[in-house]
């Protein structure tokens, strides 16, 4: 909600070594070797209750987002039509109705209704329904912007790390220039440059967050590529006449990808937070699009008399971001062969 980037995004996550450390003893080595790969990671994840909690939260939010999308596209806003009382639609539109069972200056508790379990906002719109549709934006934006950042950053970092030399210098110095600018400011600059009229504010904000997160991914994968490119299977591929770009795509990136995947999971949470912050500042979703950040923004002036305007979107953002962070931390540990969950 605040513009501050959580510190976790700036720190490079500790490197995850997919190729298990080679010990002198063969037994040890064989055991370490078994501790890599997707199935091992998943089996470790299954034993980590916090990661499972994160996964549960993400599953719920994602499911809600999918249901909301289906409702919007296929069912023609069935939920909205049943719950969302438009202010101009007449007598049913009761503004600032508190959540069920709560009273305030304008309404006593008897007036609250299960039809609006989380109350209505200052225009009589059902808060629950707006949160419901807002999930779509949060999840879409989180996944898409992270995908943009991950794909762009991974390719840039892999190319820089693989070729080294001046290519590395040019790409990484550019990335570091982006890195030096505070995340939110960078996104705002990108958004203002790409879309000064705010016609596609949300998509542009998404692209902006994607671009701004590229340096993190680029630096992360580059450090891995430096060691992977010295592996003999890469040399062997070169000696067999495989094209450079094919070596990068097929041999280098898949073997350097584990830390990127962990970072991506964390980054989704960050992206959701940032887009919410942008919406709050008026750069992301534009009214009347129901986004969590923008709901918060509108609730700002009404915080004291009508706290539920801000509490519920806040809880949604918090839960979702925590969910992605828990899963990301769990993944990081699970992918690390040096840490083993009993």
């Amino acid at each position, binding site marked *: 909600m605040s513009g501050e980037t959580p510190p976790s995004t700036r720190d490079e996550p500790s490197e995850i070594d*997919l*190729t298990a450390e080679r010990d002198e003893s063969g037994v040890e080595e064989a055991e370490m*070797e*078994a501790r*890599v790969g997707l199935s091992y990671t998943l089996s470790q994840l299954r034993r980590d209750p916090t990661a499972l909690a994160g996964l549960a939260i993400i599953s719920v939010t994602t499911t809600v987002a999918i249901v909301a999308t289906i409702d919007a596209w296929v069912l023609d806003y069935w939920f909205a039509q049943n719950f969302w009382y438009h202010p101009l639609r007449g007598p049913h539109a009761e503004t600032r109705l508190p959540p069920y069972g709560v009273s305030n200056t304008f309404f006593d508790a008897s007036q609250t209704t299960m039809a609006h379990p989380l109350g209505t906002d200052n225009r009589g719109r059902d808060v629950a329904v707006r949160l419901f549709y807002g999930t779509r934006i949060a999840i879409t934006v989180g996944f898409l912007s992270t995908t943009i950042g991950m794909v762009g950053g991974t390719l840039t970092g892999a190319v820089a790390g693989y070729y*080294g*030399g001046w290519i590395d210098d040019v790409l990484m110095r550019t990335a570091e220039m982006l890195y030096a600018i505070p995340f939110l400011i960078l996104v705002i600059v990108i958004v203002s440059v790409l879309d000064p009229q705010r016609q596609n504010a949300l998509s542009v904000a998404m692209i902006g967050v994607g671009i701004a997160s590229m340096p993190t991914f680029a630096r992360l994968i580059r450090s891995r590529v430096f060691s992977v490119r010295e*592996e*003999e*299977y890469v*040399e*062997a*591929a*070169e*000696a*067999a*006449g*495989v*094209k450079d770009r094919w070596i990068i795509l*097929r*041999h280098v990136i*898949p*073997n350097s990808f584990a830390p990127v995947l962990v970072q991506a999971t964390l980054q989704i949470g960050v992206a959701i937070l940032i887009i919410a912050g942008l919406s709050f500042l008026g750069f992301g979703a534009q009214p009347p699009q129901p986004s969590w950040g923008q709901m918060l923004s509108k609730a700002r002036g009404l915080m004291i008399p009508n706290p539920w305007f801000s509490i519920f979107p806040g809880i949604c953002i918090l839960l979702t971001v925590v969910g992605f962070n828990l899963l990301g931390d769990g993944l990081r540990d699970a992918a690390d062969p040096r840490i083993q969950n009993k």
Partner: protein
Amino acid sequence: MSTRETILEVENLKTKFFTEEGVVRAVDGVSFDVRQGEIVGLVGESGAGKSVAVQSIMRLVEEPGAVVGGEVRFKDRLLFGLEDETAGGEGAERRERDEMLTDEEMRQDIRGREIAIIFQDPMESLNPVYTVGSQIEEFIELNRDVTGEEAREIAIETLRDVGIPEVEARYDDYPNQFSGGMRQRVLIAMALACEPSLIIADEPTTALDVTVEAQILDLVDDLQDRYDTSFVWVTHDMGVVAEVCDRVNVMYLGEVVEQATANDLFHETKHPYTRSLLDSLPRPDRTVEELDPIEGVMPEAINPPSGCRFHTRCPEAREVCAAVEPDARQSADGADDHRVACFIDDAFDVGYEESLPIESETGGGFEASLTSGEGESR
């Protein structure tokens, strides 16, 4: 055998590494050739420049290293060659000859298709994230103009040839499910499957235990008869040389010091270094105490000793050895094609017999090191 055509010709190959400490002359004027269907050995201690030499042939040397001189010919094509080497000298810009293959031609026509490399460590040479089958298929599709099903059939067939049991069942296994020996077989299959004319084996059995090594060597002998592929066999193990090689080049500090057929090398050893290598081999008829390892370590190639590079460790060294650098010559009393770079041989006339012996470090002791230090400073 000698009537068969020469497929690879390396002449006066020079590769240097430009490091911060100075220029390392890793390969310094190496010449040898490989004929159709023979196994040529490249032998020497660690750091002799064997691996760099084969990387130079494939033009795989990476920064800060560079091939700076010499010529490499494969069949009728120039893999490496410079315009007028004598002009300019050290600092002058080197111009590649027009007929030299471009990087793209090198990649498409030579690597994998004509010359394949088997690397040292079978544990590291397979990509852990793909199945063994798909990796062989990748190389076959790339180098043999076949697709999908055909590549799979060739891959299975070659894997069967190299002695992988139950190929169909193991085809979709990952490299970590194979043992070291099996992985080495897979690597050999990968090289063979592209049907190259020459396979460069860079210490392929060093990481294996001796029983598996013996199996692999037998297998290579077998396959070589069947496919008629030529090999360049890089190793530090004289036992392996005796087992598989037809002809041998002994390398010391970036130079070839002796060149002979395997038979001559073992029975008519000319160079003291080769003899030392042979003496340091463990043998069942001698106890460990009788083993005669070469004293000292190989000097840095960054600042090689003057004269003969081996004179600092050579039991036969005389003062002339420190002063004049021998080139590899046809040995005076050896068989045809037995070349040696040592003044002991009568092919040289530099007054070795008259020259006084210098105490080499082999003698040990304080006095000895003093004398040799004097010799070097002069």
